[in-house]
């Protein structure tokens, strides 16, 4: 990595990364007496692919839920696009331009792929229920525009063949891709991926990696992802935050993190003699 400044940096593969899109300042999160996250600070830069890794129970998903606004930390501040974020409901966060996928796929199983992806456009619809039901004038125009956008996503993720298929009939890897499509339909500034490759075979992982890179490249979307597969993380991400027992133990490029002694210890265990 080149010199890192407030304005940004240039990655090893020559992409220019911008300033801070999101910054977490001294976040601590407790569930009763259990400390899930302890005093963690890091930032996510405009246009980068940022990974959060760590062993099981390290607090990765909790961290992602703080970013998405689902959990409100007891201490610390979340800054998004240069402003301190007040306490928000998740749908308000979504309106701000943050979309996510889930570790355990959360799609509408009985609905078609197309309808599922259309729900991702919800934050871009202004007409009310009544207008939508009548489907005249503005509501109709809006639907057409949204459908156009959704079709571009469907084309981008190559899921044309399953457009009308009910989600329940799809294999797991495809459902993951549909979830990504729905998140992309929201045109997010920041895309959160919770274990996008979990449970996939090698080929599906390669496809998904390709799509993550393409999304970042094509739409310039900033991506934060949690992932177990170290190979995937190291290949995809520009910078990596490493967590263990709710604490941050490393932060930097994949190479820096790989050579960090604390990280090695956390993953491989340390002998206590």
């Amino acid at each position: 990595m080149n010199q890192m400044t407030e304005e940004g940096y240039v990655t090893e593969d020559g992409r220019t990364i911008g300033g801070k899109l999101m910054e977490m300042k001294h976040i601590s999160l407790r569930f009763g007496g259990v400390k899930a996250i302890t005093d963690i600070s890091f930032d996510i830069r405009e246009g980068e692919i940022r990974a959060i890794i760590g062993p099981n129970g390290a607090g990765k998903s909790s961290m992602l839920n703080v970013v998405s606004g689902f959990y409100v930390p007891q201490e610390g501040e979340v800054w998004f696009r240069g402003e301190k974020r007040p306490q928000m409901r998740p749908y308000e966060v979504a309106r701000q331009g943050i979309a996510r996928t889930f570790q355990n796929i959360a799609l509408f199983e009985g609905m078609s792929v197309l309808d599922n992806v259309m729900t991702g456009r919800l934050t871009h619809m202004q007409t009310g229920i009544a207008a939508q039901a009548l489907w005249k004038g503005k509501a109709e125009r809006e639907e057409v525009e949204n459908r156009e956008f959704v079709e571009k996503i469907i084309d981008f993720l190559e899921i044309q063949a399953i457009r009308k298929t009910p989600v329940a009939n799809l294999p797991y890897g495809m459902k993951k891709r549909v979830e990504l499509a729905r998140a992309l339909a929201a045109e997010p500034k920041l895309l959160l991926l919770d274990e996008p490759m979990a449970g996939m075979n090698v080929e599906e992982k390669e496809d998904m990696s390709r799509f993550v890179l393409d999304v970042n490249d094509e739409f310039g979307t900033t991506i934060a992802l949690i992932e177990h597969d170290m190979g995937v993380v190291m290949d995809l991400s520009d910078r990596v935050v490493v967590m263990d027992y709710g604490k941050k133990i490393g932060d930097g490029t994949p190479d820096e993190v790989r050579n960090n002694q604390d990280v090695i210890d956390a993953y491989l265990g340390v002998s206590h003699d």
Partner: protein
Amino acid sequence: MAQSSQATDGLSSIPALLKRNAAEFGHKAAYREKEFGIWQSWTWKQAAEEIDNLALGLINLGVEEGDFVAIIGRNRPYLYWSMVAAQSVGAIPVPLYQDAAAEEMAYVLDHCGARFVIVEDQEQVDKVIEVQDQLHQFEHMIYLDPKGLRKYDHARLHEFAHIQEQGHAARDEFTPELEKRRAKLDYSSVCVMLYTSGTTGKPKGVVLSNRNVIESAKNSAAFDNLGPNEEVLAYLPMAWVGDFIFSIGQSYWCGFCVNCPENADTMMIDLREIGPTYYFAPPRVFETQLTNVMIRMEDAGRLKKWLFDTFMAHARKVGPAILDGKPVGAWDRIKYALGDLFIYGPLKNTLGFSRVRVGYTAGEAIGPEIFDFYRSLGINLKQLYGQTEATVFITVQPDGEVRSDTVGVPAPGVELKISDDGEVFYRSPGVFENYYKNPESTADTKDPDGWVATGDAGFIEEDTGHLRIIDRAKDVGKMSDGSLFAPKYVENKLKFYPNILEAVVFGNEREKCMAFINIDLSAVGNWAERNNIAYSSYQELAGHPKVLQTVQEHVEEVNKSVAEDPMLSGCQVHRFLILHKELDADDGEMTRTRKVRRRIVEDKYSDLITALYDGSKEIFTKTEVTYEDGRKGSISATLEIRDAAVVPVTPQKVAAE
């Protein structure tokens, strides 16, 4: 039909036909492609403009007359335009198989010395970049879909739309040049060069002239009364001669519309939406569709299943006769009409065949059950026999003379003869010019009088004049007792069972025949699911005793049927095994058009063949496999070898030998 009665005067090239179509059918759809969920269409007039802009852009880029322009991608209007634009500027289009690996492409690109390559997307761009160091003549690449390519070095890389824009901007400067080059095209100029996949050796570039293509298109269109209102779905590889003839030759000759699917996986949906009137598919596609129907009927309710079975039995009885216009009783006709209303009609609609007026299958033998199934539904499915070297057509089945075991009578303008050793020869206006940079092969294949060896052994039926193909001439051999060995004949019989995907029979110069079998994973997998048999891979399913038992029954039935033909009764399969992997083009075991490369299979699995002949009960083997991305791995397995019952026969001498 208006156009077939026209003289070919002035219509001696594809670009000339385009001009005629733009004038005559200007507002009729020429191309459709589904994109973003909607069928986009271009009229002949619009297509002509798109092609002109691209042609001007190609001149602007420096394409010279006689250059080779390689085209790689799935069927898309833009790529068809690329072929015609290349022809318009005097260059020669060379479509390549888009699923070929980079090294395979390198051979072809280097052999024709392509200076320009037009590709569909990043995948193809990457492959060409990977091998560009081996290509001394390669200069520029044009791509359609910019996805993922933004950061590539664009020194030699151009976006399709930009080339068209640049061409359009420079139209005043280059139009005279374009007109000049177009005017030079005549019947003898090269129309296209197509590489044959070749079951042996390196691919050969077959040079086809405008005469070859236009004459073949004209004759075949007249044969089947094709007109400007046909609809076809272009989904077979663009590098295959059939697609070139259907989607360019006949389409430009007749002025009909070519529809392109949204992507490779949506073909069945698109087929249904378009409802083509003229349709071509290799037997494999018909087989897959039939298998899918049967699988779904297995899961249907009892009443539905009963209805389906009853009416299909009736269709099988009278359907083909009704289709051929033969006399059928009134009650049978009424029953058939009822069936059509409730079963056949909806089924044809589901399959996308409601409007098919003429359907063809070729490339391989088609199972009689499959063939009859479609014909009994009232679909006019016929067979044709052809080759790249013949610009497709050698023999075709006329309406009313359709049978599953022949390939028809000589196509219009084609002469046939059978050599003394049984090989089929033909002569026609479609006979190719030559193999590019390969005079020896050209001389081997085509004699000075224009007769071309097909490489297939066959005979002409005396009473009907229909041609019957037995096997590849070089594969036909002799058993050690002197009787005829025709492996393909037996393999086809085996492959007619839905459970068997591929079969390879050995026995040349030996006492007995043995076979390798590949099971069909979707058919057998479905059977396994219904019978609660768990499996995790092809290999595991292939080794299951019940699967082996089923295949053994198939083999024994085939033996019975083979024994009925006194000439070929020596070809009964005595022992067989089910291979632990599917034969695959990536491993070089098959061609890209899925024909088994017998010699390579024989070499690669020599240990298995030895085991078949030495009487072992099982054999341990290890095989190298190539994954889709080019990496290699290996799989090992212990295969069980089974004996199959044979019908005893007395060995016979073959008259021809």
